[in-house]
C-alpha cells in the first residue's frame, strides 16, 4: 500500500464531493454551466485516479484499466457521433449504465457475503439489497427507454392486467430480497433476485410512451442516483453517498416539475399511462376534415402577417430543421413581421430540448417564450406555425374530457387567426391520440419533412421580393 493513502484517498474524495456540488450549482445558469461541468469533470478524474491506491483495492489493476479505457473510449466515441436530436436516448443509455454499475457492485458485495469473505450488519445488507433492486430497475428500464427512443422498439406494448403482472413481479423481487436478507445469499437466489429486478424495470417501461418518456428517463436518473448513494453507504465512501443522493433528490424534483408541466402526477404517469385511453381516443369525434396548403401559399400568408408565432416540436428535431427555420425567421423579420417562438414545457422528448436546438441555430433568447407567457398572445396572432409538434397543441386537452391528455396545459394555437401545421404525414403523434386541431376551420396542413418545407417557405418568401 502506498504510504499516506489512508489520508490522500478520503481527502481526494472529499474535494471531489465539493466540486460535484459546485459544478451542479453552476448548471443553474447558462453562463456558468460549462465551467461547472469542467470542475465536475476534474472531480471525477481525481476520484478515479486516487481509487487506484484505495486501501481496499488489492489487485486486478490490469482488468480495471481495460474496463476503464474500453468503456470510456466507446462511450466517448458514441456520444460524439450521435446527432444532437438523439441526445435524450443517449442520456437514457448512459444513465442505464450507471444503474447497472450500481447493481453489479451490489452483486459483488452479495457474492462476497456468500463466500464468507465479507461481513455485513443487517442494515448494510438491507441497503445493499435495496440498491441492487433500484439499480437493476434503472438499468433495464433505461435500456428499454433508449431502445424505444432510438426507434428499435417503437410501439408501446400492453397486455391485459399488465399492472397486476408488474405488481407480482415486483412483489417477487422484494420477497427474494427478504429471503436473501434472512437466509443469506447464494448464487442461485442472487440470479433469480437480479433477474426479477431487471424484469420489473422492463415491465414498468414497456407500456410508457409519448410525452411520458422524458418523465420516466428523469425518474430513472433519480433512481440511479439513489442506488449510487446506497452503494456509497455499503462501500463506506461518503463521496458516493453525497453525489448519489444529491442527484437522487435533484432528479426527483426535476421529475416532479416535468410531470407537473403535463398536469399529471408521477403515479399517473407510471400506472395509469396514456395506455388504456389510446384505443378509445381514436374514436373521439373528429368533425370536419383536414385541409392542406402548399408552401407557396403558406409563405405568402406569413410574409404579409404582422405577428407570427412558431411552435417547434419533435418533428423539427428529427428533420434537423432548426437552422432553416431560423433563416426563415430572419427573412420574416426583415420584412417587419414580429416573430416569436413558443415552447411547451415538454416539447420534443425532454424539457428544454427545443431550447437547446434553437440555441444551436442561434435564435435569440428574447424571442423564446414559455407557455404561460405566450398563450394570451395567440388570439392576436395572424399565423401560428406548428412544426412537428402534435400533442402539445391538441385542443382536446381543453375540450374533450374523455381524452387521455385532458387537463394537460397546451399552447392555444387554435386561437390564432390562422394555424399552419407542418407534418410529415397524416398519422397521429407519438402518443397515438387524434389531434382535434387538424380538423379546425382555421387550420391548414403543410405536409412534408420540416427541413424541406422550411426550404420551400424560404424560397416562397424570397420570391415575394
Amino acid at each position: 500500500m502506498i504510504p499516506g493513502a489512508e489520508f490522500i484517498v478520503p481527502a481526494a474524495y472529499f474535494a471531489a464531493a465539493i466540486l460535484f456540488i459546485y459544478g451542479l450549482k453552476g448548471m443553474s445558469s447558462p453562463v456558468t454551466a460549462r465551467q461547472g461541468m469542467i470542475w465536475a469533470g476534474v472531480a471525477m478524474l481525481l476520484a478515479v485516479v486516487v481509487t487506484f491506491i484505495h486501501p481496499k483495492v488489492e489487485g486486478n489493476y490490469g482488468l480495471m484499466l481495460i474496463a476503464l479505457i474500453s468503456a470510456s473510449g466507446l462511450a466517448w466515441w458514441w456520444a460524439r457521433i450521435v446527432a444532437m436530436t438523439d441526445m435524450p436516448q443517449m442520456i437514457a443509455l448512459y444513465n442505464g449504465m450507471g444503474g447497472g454499475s450500481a447493481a453489479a457492485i451490489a452483486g459483488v458485495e452479495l457474492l462476497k457475503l456468500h463466500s464468507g469473505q465479507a461481513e455485513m450488519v443487517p442494515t448494510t445488507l438491507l441497503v445493499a439489497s435495496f440498491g441492487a433492486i433500484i439499480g437493476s430497475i434503472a438499468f433495464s428500464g433505461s435500456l428499454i427507454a433508449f431502445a424505444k427512443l432510438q426507434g428499435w422498439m417503437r410501439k408501446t406494448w400492453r397486455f391485459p392486467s399488465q399492472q397486476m403482472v408488474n405488481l407480482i413481479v415486483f412483489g417477487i423481487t422484494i420477497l427474494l430480497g427478504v429471503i436473501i436478507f434472512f437466509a443469506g445469499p447464494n448464487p442461485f437466489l442472487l440470479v433469480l433476485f437480479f433477474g426479477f429486478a431487471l424484469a420489473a424495470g422492463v415491465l414498468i417501461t414497456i407500456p410508457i410512451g409519448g410525452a411520458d418518456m422524458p418523465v420516466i428517463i428523469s425518474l430513472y436518473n433519480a433512481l440511479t442516483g439513489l442506488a449510487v448513494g446506497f452503494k456509497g453507504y455499503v462501500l463506506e465512501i461518503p463521496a458516493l453517498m453525497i453525489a448519489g443522493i444529491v442527484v437522487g433528490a435533484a432528479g426527483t424534483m426535476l421529475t416532479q416539475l416535468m410531470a407537473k408541466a403535463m398536469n399529471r402526477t408521477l403515479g399517473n404517469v407510471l400506472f395509469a399511462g396514456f395506455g388504456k385511453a389510446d384505443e378509445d381516443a381514436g374514436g373521439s369525434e373528429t368533425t370536419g376534415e383536414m385541409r392542406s396548403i402548399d408552401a407557396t401559399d403558406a409563405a405568402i400568408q406569413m410574409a404579409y402577417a404582422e405577428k407570427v408565432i412558431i411552435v417547434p416540436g419533435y418533428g423539427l428535431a428529427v428533420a434537423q430543421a432548426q437552422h432553416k427555420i431560423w433563416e426563415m425567421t430572419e427573412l420574416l423579420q426583415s420584412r417587419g413581421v414580429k416573430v416569436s417562438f413558443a415552447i411547451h414545457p415538454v416539447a420534443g422528448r425532454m424539457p428544454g430540448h427545443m431550447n437547446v436546438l434553437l440555441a444551436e441555430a442561434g435564435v435569440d433568447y428574447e424571442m423564446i417564450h414559455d407557455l404561460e407567457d405566450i398563450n394570451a398572445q395567440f388570439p392576436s396572432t395572424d399565423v401560428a406555425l406548428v412544426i412537428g409538434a402534435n400533442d402539445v397543441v391538441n385542443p382536446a386537452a381543453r375540450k374533450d374530457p374523455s381524452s387521455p391528455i385532458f387537463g394537460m396545459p397546451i399552447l392555444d394555437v387554435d386561437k390564432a387567426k390562422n394555424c399552419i401545421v407542418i407534418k410529415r404525414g397524416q398519422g397521429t403523434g407519438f402518443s397515438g391520440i387524434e389531434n382535434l386541431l387538424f380538423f379546425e376551420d382555421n387550420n391548414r396542413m403543410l405536409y412534408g419533412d420540416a427541413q424541406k418545407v422550411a426550404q420551400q417557405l424560404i424560397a416562397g418568401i424570397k420570391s415575394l421580393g
Partner: protein
Amino acid sequence: MEGWIALYIFMLAAFTGIEVIRRVPAILHTPLMSGSNFIHGIVVVGGMVVLGMADTTAEIVVGFIAVFLGAGNAVGGYVVTDRMLEMFKSSDKTKDKG
C-alpha cells in the same frame, strides 16, 4: 459507517440536491438532467473498489461489468452534457438571461 451519521449525510445531501435545482430555468432542464447523469457516474469508483477486492471468477466478472458500465456512464454523460452546453456558448446574448 455509523448509521446515524449516514442518515445525516443522506438528509443534508437531499436538501442540497433540492436547493441546487430549485431556481434552474426550464431551458437548462435537459442539460441539468444530463449533468446529474454524469455525476452519478462516480459509481465507477465503487466499481473499481469492488473489482479491486474481487477474488473468484464470478466476482471478477461482475466487478469488471461494474467498472465498465460505471466508466461508460461517467464519460458518456460528460460528453453529452458538454455537447449540449457548447450550444449555449455561441450566443453572447445569453448573459442577460439566466
